[in-house]
């Protein structure tokens, strides 16, 4: 396979892929391309969605045929080296998270599997400036990355039947947060009160692709107090 690649997604979209494995460069390329498509003014484009290694472009087949969309995307791809894209400016979040014990019952298991202490695992996570690589699984749910290689673990072979709302879980070099109870194959290491999807808020989705997040360790007691705050104690600034 040579990259970048363009393939159709059914009759209603195209997927532009910059790589088949995750990397910081592929994520930056994905985000940069997602930002560039609306500005290119391609007829029939309905939406864009950056993914871990590429970008989905929605197509209205009543307006434009796939061949025309593909040609326009190919032309846009030629205009620069997308994998060399700089990090784009975005909002910067500081999000309180309680780790371990009842807030994250699998932290010890994760630490053991990685050959680190739980404190080292938390320290490496909180000192990584995470990016929202994409939103998926549930509305507003972020895939955060990239964690350093020292923290990479595969998904579990089985599913945990249910983790609670606010669960912070990790697998495959990423972290995600659940807004509502859900089953998961990722490991539950912490808990936050950050809301992700609220219909009564001005904008229903708290996070957007490209946002940066620093997870700030707090105690379980502090987290309990923060659940009264509408943003769970999170602060945002920028760009």
């Amino acid at each position, binding site marked *: 396979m040579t990259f970048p690649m363009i393939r159709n997604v059914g*009759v209603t979209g195209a997927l532009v892929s910059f790589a088949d494995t995750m990397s910081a460069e592929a994520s930056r390329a994905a985000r940069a391309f997602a930002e560039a498509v609306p500005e290119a003014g391609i007829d029939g484009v309905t939406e864009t969605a950056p993914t871990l290694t590429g970008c989905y472009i*929605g197509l209205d087949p009543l307006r434009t045929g*796939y061949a025309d969309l593909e040609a326009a995307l190919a032309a846009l791809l030629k205009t620069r080296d997308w994998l060399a894209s700089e990090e784009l400016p975005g909002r910067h979040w500081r999000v309180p998270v309680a780790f371990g014990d009842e807030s994250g019952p699998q932290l010890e298991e994760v630490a053991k599997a990685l050959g680190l202490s739980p404190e080292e695992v938390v320290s490496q996570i909180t000192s990584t400036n995470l990016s929202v690589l994409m939103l*998926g*699984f549930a509305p507003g749910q972020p895939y955060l990355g990239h964690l350093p290689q020292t923290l990479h673990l595969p998904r579990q072979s089985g599913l945990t039947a249910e983790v609670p709302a606010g669960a912070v879980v990790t697998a495959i070099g990423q972290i995600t947060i659940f807004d509502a109870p859900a089953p998961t194959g990722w490991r539950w290491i912490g808990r936050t009160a950050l809301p992700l999807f609220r219909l009564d808020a001005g904008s229903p989705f708290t996070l957007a692709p490209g946002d940066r997040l620093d997870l700030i360790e707090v105690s379980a007691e502090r987290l309990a107090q923060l659940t009264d705050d509408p943003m769970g104690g999170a602060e945002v600034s920028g760009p």
Partner: protein
Amino acid sequence: MTVTFRILDAAPGVSLQDRGRPGYLQYGLSRGGAVDQIALAEGAALLGTEIDAALELPGRGGRFSVEGGPLEFALTGARMAARIGERDLVWNATHVLRPGEVLEIGGARLGSYGMLSLAGVIETPVIMGAKGAHLRARIGRALTAGDSFEVGPTAPAAPRILAPGDRLSGGTLRIVASAQTALFSQVTLDRLLDTKFRRGQRGNRMGLALDHDGEGFAADNQLSVLSEIVTPGDIQMTGDGTPFILGPECQTTGGYPRIATVIPSDMPRAFQAQPGAPLTLEMIDLETAIEITRQTAADLAALGKTVRPRLRDPHDMADLLSYQLISGVTLGEPS
């Protein structure tokens, strides 16, 4: 002036549905909308209204009443046992519900999702641009006994009917190769197209399982596939090798590989198939699929032209005695 439409009783999962909320894929929200978009359009065409929201009835309907005036409605999609009092109601047609009457819609005889469209604008909150519920995302909710909403009704007109093609019995679903088709071997793809599937027992607005006898289906290197965008119609290979056709409320990203995508025009046929109904997959090329998509849109826009007056059963006519059916009477004597 509005009338009050009341839910006396509703089957689980009855919800208001419309065209959904496109444009939020990057935020993790799938489009949603009625599983049978054709039934939604047919209901509006029968009533001569714009598409508003209608009640989607999964498997069974419920009991409904109206206060404040008569309300015309249409029944489309899966054929269900429906009646007002002793009168059985014809499907794919308009009827009128009057104060004091109860509309009872029972189990589906053919198909899985019935649609009850009301002639008028339903007064219900518009959330993120649409009235329909997205049950998985918790936008809106299923309807239940005691719910009611105001409807700004249009005046009932002469009864009408239309004759849809049969899309309620399963059959052939046309699919196109999609972004992850190349992850599967040609042997696997050929086998998929040769397999006689049955609509599985598992199925809802998020998707439906395709059951079959024989080996499961898998991609090469299935476990190391990255999470990627997922859209309704995608045929996803789950961990146990069962193909799953993703529905309007599917997740927007997923790590299970997708072998192909059911074209939007055949999604009503897929989701209307009852558990056990036969389904086979036919691969078509992308250009043809786009042509079919455009044709379907044109057909739906022209549905109004296929609506016909329905001859009324005298039993339907509450005001029969006021009609003068015969004028002029002779004494019977030869002149």
